[in-house]
């Protein structure tokens, strides 16, 4: 079948849904690839690159829609693009069917199948086609760059001959994919990063990215995001009050605030109010990643950068992924390619729209003339529900438990030793003295071997195997002693033993050395 990508007609959109690299992969699935002339220009992919990757370049969007069976694009289609759709044609793009009902109806009337990349369910199998996450990741990174661009100081602290520079303090509100990406970018620039989220389970993720979790002392049971597919749910008014009070407390210190709080299917919650902006120092920056949905900050103006009365810059751009078009196109086209892989299970270039597949069903908004949005809830929950936590034992109880364990282990060890000792005595009573000497060595070696191996680091287990193998070649001694004995067969067998044991010894040690050399830097 034929798959094609038109040039995005939305103003200022630089991304493209197919890159030369993704086209190569798509051809491996058996598809013929088409692209509109100049579609990749803005993302730095030239028509020549596409031609070299075996993509046919078409002159107009109209002819592209006529030629292909599958259209892959980035933005939801405009009216003119809906008009170009054919019956039975499949459109893969961001669609936001929840908000764009009229658009969905129009596309449905045309008889086109719609796969909305923003509706891919959040389950681990579908992560590779989760375009919202890959775009949010870029937005998070870019928001830090944008903040740095408007911020007149270093991110990292420095001590120079010309004086001490304190590190910038960054507050990230909402630690979803974008928030975590922003934390990563800001910490690696050297800022002191604080992050807040209503879902307590992300505290660990925040801390693992190197930021400090802003802890809210609040008694009420907070939702852990398991039932909302990993997204945040609206919080109670009391919680909100507490949260705002905390932000007010933090506002005077924070040089950069990046807000990413979104609740699915609602306007963005207002979290950074006007009075907090007025508490901030002049020269501070607020980047509002929720600007498209009304913004988390009171003063945010969508697609604009404004400066407040007290000199705080508030950035409300919504096109962060588009600003990094080369990167975002690469990621988005990979998401599309993975979606196509799932849609082409036989790798024969034939699209198989399997409505029984959870992921494909979830993403499909219109199929065979029927609107299939909203999809049924996915069978697998995104995050396993939290198990009820047993009451924490008190310190005294813990101590008692510990003591009990120690006692138990101690008595076990004693029993084992007594048993072992008795066994030794029994052997000693019957075995000859020469055997007992060897037996001492045997038991001691068992213990030494156990103790020694226990300390070997995990990365060295393969060399350990090789070196113990080499050492087990010590069996050569037995063969050496036998070789001098009379008897033809014995000499032959012993000679062979000496030969192969020697191969084992030398080979084993050499192999160990070669393995260890791999651990050398340089």
């Amino acid at each position: 079948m034929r798959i094609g990508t038109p040039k995005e007609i939305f103003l200022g959109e630089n991304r493209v849904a197919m890159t030369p690299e993704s086209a190569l992969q798509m051809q491996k699935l058996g598809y013929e690839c088409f692209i509109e002339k100049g579609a990749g220009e803005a993302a730095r992919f030239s028509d020549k690159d596409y031609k070299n990757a075996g993509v046919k370049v078409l002159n107009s969007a109209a002819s592209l829609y006529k030629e292909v069976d599958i259209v892959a694009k980035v933005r939801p289609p405009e009216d003119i693009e809906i008009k170009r759709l054919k019956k039975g044609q499949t459109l893969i793009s961001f669609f936001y069917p929840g908000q764009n009902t009229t658009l969905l109806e129009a596309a449905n009337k045309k008889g086109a199948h719609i796969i909305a990349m923003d509706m891919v369910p959040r389950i681990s199998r579908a992560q590779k086609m989760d375009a919202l996450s890959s775009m949010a990741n870029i937005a998070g990174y870019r928001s830090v760059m944008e903040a740095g661009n408007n911020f007149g100081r270093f991110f990292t602290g420095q001590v120079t001959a010309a004086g001490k520079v304190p590190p910038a303090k960054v507050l990230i509100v909402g630690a979803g994919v974008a928030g975590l990406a922003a934390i990563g970018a800001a910490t690696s620039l050297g800022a002191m990063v604080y992050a807040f989220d209503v879902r307590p389970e992300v505290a660990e993720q925040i801390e693992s990215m190197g930021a400090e979790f802003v802890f809210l002392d609040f008694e009420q049971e907070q939702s852990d995001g398991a039932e909302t597919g990993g997204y945040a749910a609206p919080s109670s008014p009391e919680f909100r009050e507490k949260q705002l009070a905390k932000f007010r407390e933090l506002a005077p210190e924070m040089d950069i605030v990046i807000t990413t709080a979104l609740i699915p299917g609602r306007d963005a919650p207002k979290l950074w109010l006007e009075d907090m902006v007025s508490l901030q120092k002049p020269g501070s920056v607020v980047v509002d990643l929720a600007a498209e949905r009304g913004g988390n900050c009171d003063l945010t103006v969508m697609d604009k950068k404004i400066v407040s009365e007290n000199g705080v810059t508030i950035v409300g751009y919504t096109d962060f992924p588009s600003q990094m078009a080369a990167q975002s196109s690469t990621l988005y086209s990979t998401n599309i390619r993975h979606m196509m892989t799932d849609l082409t299970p036989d790798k024969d270039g034939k699209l198989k729209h399997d409505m029984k597949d959870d992921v494909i069903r979830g993403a499909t908004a219109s199929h065979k003339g029927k609107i299939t949005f909203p999809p049924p809830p996915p069978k697998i929950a995104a995050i396993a529900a939290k198990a009820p936590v047993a009451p924490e034992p008190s310190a005294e109880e813990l101590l008692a438990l510990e003591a009990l364990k120690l006692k138990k282990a101690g008595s076990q060890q004693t029993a084992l030793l007594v048993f072992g000792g008795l066994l030794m005595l029994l052997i000693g009573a019957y075995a000859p003295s020469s055997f007992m000497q060897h037996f001492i060595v045997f038991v001691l070696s068992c213990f030494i071997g156990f103790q020694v191996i226990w300390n070997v680091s995990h990365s060295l287990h393969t060399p350990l195997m090789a070196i113990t193998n080499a050492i087990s070649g010590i069996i050569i001694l037995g063969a050496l002693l036998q070789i001098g004995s009379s008897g033809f067969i014995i000499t032959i067998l012993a000679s062979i033993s000496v030969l192969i044991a020697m191969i084992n010894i030398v080979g084993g040690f050499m192999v160990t050395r070669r393995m260890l050399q791999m651990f050398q830097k340089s």
Partner: protein
Amino acid sequence: MGIGIVTATYIAASVLFILALGGLSNQEKAKRAVWYGIVGMALAVVATMFGPGVGGWSIILLIPLLGVGAFIGMVVAQRVEMTEMPQLVAALHSFVGLAAVFIGLNSDILGTHGLVGAEIAIHEVEVFLGVFIGAITFTGSIIAYGKLAGKIDGKALVLPFRHLLNIAAIIFSLILLLMYMNHSGSWTLYLMMIIAFALGAHLVAAIGGADMPVVVSMLNSYSGWAALPQAFY
């Protein structure tokens, strides 16, 4: 060299082996550790060669054998690709197993000269065990090598009643051991060797290709156990 010096050298070699294994606890020490192992092994071999146990003329035979073995080992270890290391280690294990079998057979032919009472029984058990474990290690390692190298199908071979088969093989070997100790003749030892060969091959063939590294380290342990009874002579 007197027996005292040989024993002293053995003690030094043992200490070096322990240091070699213990040194693997970190990457930096590990390089030195390998040298400890090499020196320990060299000490043990040289001490045995020039010790009282080896007659004068056999050294003439030994030196070329050791030389050829060392050469082959070196060439193989240097030629092999890094990704083929696991199968090489498996192949090397099979050598230890085979050597243990041969040495055990030799001990049987040599007989129980100069041993009295319980010593004879212990010696016989040792010989028998050495051959048994050595044989399992030998065929097991060869199958493991084949699976790792892709020469044998990696899928687990599942025979009907496989556990029963294994148990039967072990019980039969035990009966043979009793017969061997009652001096029924060396044929019991040879028969058990064949059973153990089959048992080793079957044990490893029943394990899938992905679990081979575990098998190899298990066989590694076996090859140590195989070497062990020989040390009790």
